[in-house]
């Protein structure tokens, strides 16, 4: 089996690639959550200008392919006369992308909470900020946690696009190792197995978490 031979020869590189893929996805979704909350606040703001800016941002990001966005942020620094680390450019593009999607998730989560919850809290004399933090957001986040997990799984797969720029993720390793050992097909199979194990175990974990949460609901 040439696949096994290739694993035996190149497992440190694949392990390294897996690590790059996992931490890039984690950082992206984590930052996406933080900035996504801010964008969501802008989208639900009273100010028309903030609403307009955030809406345009979300629509443009969701309406264009992520590969194109990666290229834009890859070439943009040079256009501006800047020299930036290529990993930083790629991460920036991913965060800009994820923020748009996560902000929509959070918005739908907030809107899924019955208005009666807000009314009850306000009738008790809580301020609108206290109501958001103590009543609406905890329930909203609980509702969208599965979707955020899905966003993480999506991101694991989407980081494969980083190989276009040889960033060192699983697909980058697949290309270099495949070429070095003249086994491009076998390298692809190994990469596929790694992605599947990552996403499958992640979605199983999510299912478990969801069931646990429903229990004490």
């Amino acid at each position: 089996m040439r696949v096994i031979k290739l694993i035996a020869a190149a497992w440190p590189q694949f392990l390294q690639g897996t690590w790059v893929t996992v931490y890039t996805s984690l950082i992206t979704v984590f930052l996406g959550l933080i900035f996504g909350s801010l964008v969501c606040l802008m989208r639900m703001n009273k100010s028309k200008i903030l609403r307009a800016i955030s809406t345009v941002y979300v629509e443009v990001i969701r309406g264009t392919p992520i590969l194109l966005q990666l290229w834009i942020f890859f070439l943009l620094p040079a256009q501006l006369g800047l020299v930036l680390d290529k990993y930083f450019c790629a991460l920036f593009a991913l965060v800009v992308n994820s923020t748009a999607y996560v902000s929509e998730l959070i918005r739908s989560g907030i809107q899924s909470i019955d208005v009666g919850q807000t009314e009850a809290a306000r009738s008790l004399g809580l301020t609108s900020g206290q109501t958001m933090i103590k009543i609406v957001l905890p329930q909203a986040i609980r509702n969208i946690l599965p979707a955020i997990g899905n966003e993480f799984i999506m991101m694991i797969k989407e980081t494969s696009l980083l190989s276009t720029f040889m960033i060192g993720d699983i697909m980058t390793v697949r290309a270099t190792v495949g070429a070095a050992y003249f086994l491009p097909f076998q390298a692809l199979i190994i990469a596929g197995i790694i992605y599947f194990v990552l996403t499958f175990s992640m979605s199983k974990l999510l299912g478990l978490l969801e069931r646990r949460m429903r229990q004490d609901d």
Partner: protein
Amino acid sequence: MTESMIQPNDNGLVKGQELIRVEGLHKSFGKLHVLKGIDEVIHQGEVVSVIGPSGSGKSTFLRCLNLLETPEEGKIFFEGVQINAKGVNVDIHRRKMGMVFQQFNVFPHLSVLDNVTLAPVMTKKMSKEEANETAMGLLKRIGLADKANVFPRTLSGGQKQRLAIVRALAMSPDVMLFDEPTSALDPEMVGEVLDVIRTLVKGGMTTVLVTHEMGFARAVSNRILFMDGGVIEESGTPEQIFGDPQSPRTREFLSKVLF
């Protein structure tokens, strides 16, 4: 804990004193004109039931009293302050107006105890310990002390509504507003909720109750408001309204709901 736990605190208000005053209230939802000029005064210690057909504006009127609905026109005074005037912080006044909703609106992500202690602690009315003690006393009164640490999901409708009532009482309000508190309940649970309200009313709590429970309204109220078409069509003692209604529309409505 004693009976007094479920009764209004000594708020220094004199019985019969004006508590809520409504002047020229108008409210529309889009093109729908729901309230068409309401003038009403609720006095300290009064128990006022609002009855009338669906769509008559009863609930909207009640929800205007603590500004869950913002009226387009008119003035609402609570304890002498016009709470719908510009620059008034309504949150402070809402803390003295308890409200109970048709759909309970208990907080599903908080334990029964935390449902009750949240507002007193968040509004810095009480320390956490004090709020816990008060809440346990209130829960004991309604027979839910053993449920203090469970989540509302496991409660019946009647238990949820009783929880919603003590959640409001934990803020020691000067008035309680009930918005059809038994309309979403299974018939066998209506009694237990009405019992809690009855105890409260007997203890002297100023109460405004929107309800379809005519028998209950008649039994506990000092005054009945009959609303129809966005106005208060008739107002009087339960004996007057149920025994000798003056307006033809009141008569028509009562003939349909009383058998």
